[in-house]
């Protein structure tokens, strides 16, 4: 459903963010996008969702296709309307708004009220804690709860393709597991998921397919199983512990 | 989406069309205005501008105050602001600041006067064209000084310096450079400065006159009327108040409530309430037009309906409305429709001929700008007659100028000379608001020069 070919992204007209990245995501699957810091994972997501402009970056060559139509120059809002939702890196919830209003924001692109109501109930089903505290200011939620809200908010646009950027970042292992299970649940309802993670073990445990970005291009790809068993993967990312990431750029 | 786009475009187009229409509405009177820029076009101008012909010194200028008692001297030598052919006058006015509301019409009035002199008299002495150079002070001393410096070497004198702070700032430089300046404001203190050439009745006298008139002649009230005052916080307000307090003392009434206001004030609820509570039946308004209008609207709101007694700066016909019924004002100028005053007939005719083609109507500020130049003109004639347009020559001419005839445009003629010899005008005309008497919406009630004025010392 999503196909990225030979994508090159340049930051501030000088720094190369991506240099010929290739990727494809099949409908209904979970695809993991792995890689070290600065490998270009987030850049790729930004390119897909049209947010490069916010980072002084642009696509210089290559193509992004969603269901056969080119996404390269489409505005972010239009991309969401075409069925691409995302939970951004760093969650980026609206701390000053209530949980309910955060979800409302997520549902802005949906016109049908009943459908919106239904989605919201679904989100509250997935994350009961959000339902309980729906009138609270979102800024006061814990890190894990904020992540849940970020995912819930992304779901509000009823996406066919859900992009998740490091949902496990900085969370306790227990919560990571919880989130992983939710992702699997979401996928079961038919939503395709592109999961960006440093925590390769977590990601590959639910993914069907995986890509490893190195220096702005795909260094390694294959089915989740292949990757799990790959030696270099073992050495680099699956050292048995959850990779801890420190400063993000 | 497209519908919205159309709607928005249409509205923007409305705006654009409207702006364009406004700009081009000036074109309607195009034919009249276009040739004002060509001075030689005026057909019956006898004295050509090109020559420095010595023969023609006895001009036919109407404003020749001191009839030829002095032997005509030779042609004046070139001097700063005078190249032998053209006399340049400096104007320090507010073109883009808070007082642009006054500065722009004042300068326009002056320009009309000089357009007339250049076109119909062939210039000063029948041969020297006059050019105006304006500097924008923004009513700020700092800019005023800068503009003064820019204009001073290219001006024979400063024919108008608007508003008190710039005048105060520039005064020291005028003294140092011995350049004559005409203050656009009418504070009486200016009469004591050798380099300044004030004209019109000082604010102090205006207030004394209107108080005297109100108490003794108006039939509207007397010494027992509860009288109050609102004055603006600046030198104008201060000297006006000084004159009024003097008059109150002499006439034997109290100023029951005294309030002050600032320029740019937008709310007068408390002021009006205080005046109302004090039971004021008459309020002297030493104020400025927009604020005065706002204050009177608030008074109407609170049902406070006194007699208002104002001075020149507190009234602007453009801002006066139905709630001005009981507004009386002391002014120098005659009624705009009074054809018995020859100067006024001339003014209206010249205004019609030389006004900018924006369709402006004459009002007190255009008029002030116009008539103030009569004295400047007389001074220049005198200096030309004495054959010296240098700074010293003009300063000298002022000491010898004597009385300047204004053809009835001022209530009284100013007598110039060294500061100690000057006899400032002190008479005023009293007007009442009258919507049926356009363009200035005022009808003259009285012309008086209070006896109290003699006992009042200006700048005391």
């Amino acid at each position, binding site marked *: 459903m999503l196909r990225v070919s030979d994508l090159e992204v340049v930051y501030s007209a000088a720094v190369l963010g991506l240099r010929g990245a290739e990727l494809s995501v099949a409908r209904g699957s979970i695809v993991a996008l792995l890689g070290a810091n600065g490998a270009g994972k987030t850049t790729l997501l930004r390119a897909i969702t049209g947010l490069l402009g916010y980072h002084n970056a642009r696509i210089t060559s290559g193509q992004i296709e969603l269901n056969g139509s080119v996404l390269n120059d489409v505005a972010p809002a239009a991309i969401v309307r075409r069925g691409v939702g995302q939970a951004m890196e760093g969650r980026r919830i609206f701390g000053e708004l209530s949980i309910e209003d955060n979800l409302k924001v997520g549902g802005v692109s949906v016109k049908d009220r009943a459908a919106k109501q239904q989605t919201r109930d679904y989100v509250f089903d997935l994350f009961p804690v959000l339902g309980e505290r729906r009138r609270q200011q979102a800024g006061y939620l814990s890190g894990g709860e904020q992540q849940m809200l970020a995912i819930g908010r992304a779901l509000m646009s009823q996406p066919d393709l859900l992009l998740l950027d490091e949902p496990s970042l900085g969370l306790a292992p227990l919560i990571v597991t919880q989130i992983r299970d939710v992702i699997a649940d979401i996928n079961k309802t038919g939503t395709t998921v592109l999961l960006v993670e440093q925590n390769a073990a977590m990601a590959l445990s639910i993914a069907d397919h995986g890509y490893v970005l190195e220096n702005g291009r795909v260094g390694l790809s294959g089915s989740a199983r292949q990757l799990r068993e790959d030696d270099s993967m073992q050495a680099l990312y699956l050292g048995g512990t959850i990779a801890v990431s420190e400063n993000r750029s | 989406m497209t519908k919205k786009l159309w709607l928005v475009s249409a509205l923007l187009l409305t705006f654009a069309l409207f702006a*364009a229409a406004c*700009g*081009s509405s*000036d*074109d309607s009177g195009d034919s009249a*205005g*276009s040739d*004002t*820029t060509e001075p030689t076009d005026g057909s019956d101008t006898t004295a050509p501008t090109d020559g420095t012909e010595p023969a023609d010194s006895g001009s036919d200028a109407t404003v020749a105050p001191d009839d030829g008692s002095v032997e005509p001297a030779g042609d004046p030598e070139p001097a700063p602001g005078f190249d032998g052919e053209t006399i340049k006058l400096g104007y320090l006015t507010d*073109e*883009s*600041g*808070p007082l642009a509301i006054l500065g*722009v019409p004042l*300068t*326009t009035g*002056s*320009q*009309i006067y000089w*357009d007339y002199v250049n076109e119909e008299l062939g210039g000063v002495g029948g041969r020297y064209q006059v*050019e*105006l150079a*304006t*500097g*924008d002070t*923004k*009513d*700020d*001393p*700092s800019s005023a*000084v*800068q503009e003064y*410096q*820019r204009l*001073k*070497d290219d001006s024979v004198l400063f024919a108008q310096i608007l508003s*008190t*702070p710039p005048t*105060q*700032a520039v005064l*020291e*430089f005028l003294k140092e450079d011995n350049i004559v300046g005409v203050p656009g404001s009418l504070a009486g203190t200016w009469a004591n400065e050798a380099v300044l050439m004030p004209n019109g009745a000082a604010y102090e006298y205006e207030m004394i006159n209107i108080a005297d008139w109100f108490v003794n002649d108006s039939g509207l009230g007397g010494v027992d009327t509860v009288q109050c005052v609102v004055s603006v*916080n*600046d*030198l104008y307000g*201060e000297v006006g108040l000084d004159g009024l307090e003097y008059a109150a003392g002499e006439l034997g009434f109290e100023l029951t409530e005294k309030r002050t206001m*600032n*320029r*740019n004030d937008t709310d007068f609820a408390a002021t009006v309430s205080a005046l109302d509570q004090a039971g004021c039946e008459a309020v002297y308004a030493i104020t400025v037009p927009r604020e005065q209008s706002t204050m009177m609207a608030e008074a109407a709101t609170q049902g406070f309906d006194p007699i208002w007694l104002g001075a020149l700066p507190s009234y602007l016909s453009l801002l006066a409305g139905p709630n001005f019924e009981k507004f009386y004002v002391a002014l120098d100028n005659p009624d705009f429709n009074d054809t018995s005053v020859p100067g006024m007939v001339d003014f209206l005719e010249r205004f019609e001929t*030389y*006004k*900018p*083609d924006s369709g402006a109507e004459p009002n007190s500020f255009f008029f002030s700008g116009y008539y103030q130049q009569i004295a400047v003109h007389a001074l220049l004639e005198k200096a030309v007659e004495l054959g010296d347009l240098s700074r010293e020559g003009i300063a000298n001419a002022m000491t010898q100028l004597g009385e300047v005839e204004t053809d009835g445009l001022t209530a009284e003629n100013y007598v110039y000379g060294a500061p100690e010899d000057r006899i400032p005008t002190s008479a005023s005309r009293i007007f009442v608001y009258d919507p049926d008497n356009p363009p200035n919406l005022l009808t003259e009630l009285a012309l008086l020069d209070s006896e109290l004025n003699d006992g009042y010392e200006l700048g005391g």
Partner: protein
Amino acid sequence: MTDDLRLLRSAGARIGAALAVAAVVVTPLLISSDFWMSVFIAAGVFALGGLGLNLLTGYTGQASLGQAAFVLIGAYTAAWFGADKGWPMLLWMAAAMLAAGLVGAAIGPFALRFKGNYLVVVSIALVFVTVHVLQNWDSFSGGFNGKSVGGISLSFLVDFGDLSIFGKQFTPEQGLFYLTWIVVGLATLAVANIIRTRPGRALQAIRDRDVAAEVIGIRVARNKVIVFALSGAMAGLAGGLDAARVGFLTPGVAESQLLLSIRYVAVIVVGGVGTVVGAIVGALFLGPLPELVEEFSDKINFTVPLVDQPLLKDSATSEGIMSNAVFSEILFSILLVVFLMFQPRGLVGLWHRMVASLKRRGTPTDDAGPDIEPVATPH
């Protein structure tokens, strides 16, 4: 690193400094007009106040529209001590700096509490309150009627009010020109020193991330207060010099003082926010602008199509779309917007870019990239 701390890093900078000094020395020898001297003194005053503002806004990231308040405070203090009390020049200068600096220090703590937008409004409040106090404190300021600054001393070692060097007699304006630009030069050195050394880096750390600066051990509170004081002091001195130029002070109305503050901000924006010489460049560019428009109005003028009228009015009654004064105000507003939109690094940034592209073309191996100071990101 040690090289980095040196004041004049490159040969280019040294040549530039020498040229600037030469320009200051030579200008009064070439120009005798009181007018142009007055214009350049005023530009110097803008430069001085702008240097202070740049330290505050450009380097420390504290947004302020309050610079006019400090200028006013300095001007009145100078007038009070210099003209009324007859203190010698250095003393009234010190007093003007101290008074404005102290008020700045008093504002500093507010800046700790308020950020960004709020700080802007607090700085506007300062202008309103200062104007109000000056309007009413008659015994000190002369109130609404203003105050004469006649007889203020301009003498230190030499009398700048009556300057005579090698038998050449200078006008008071020329003398004040030298004085003003000497002060601007010294202030520039001071600012350059501050920002090239440790305290300056601390300031920039504050600008870039308040909380992070605290974490790495910069005492944000103390540094902010110091910067407000310094910035205020420089504006105060600027006010004192302007008082000497104008010779008369009025508090005016708050709105027009606010416009003055805006002019100070515009000076650094057009010159180059967060660059040492930005304020000077901006002041030399914007300061004389209205005067240049007046001087060259007939050259600028043209007939505007559609309405078929000249752009500028020749005289009050001639036709034309706007007066010179309105034109220069419009020009000013457009310049401000255009610089913010297209050249946020100001003229200095533009210059660096030109130099860099020239270098690149000439000697491709030259590694010296554009020597651009960090652009301010006040938040």
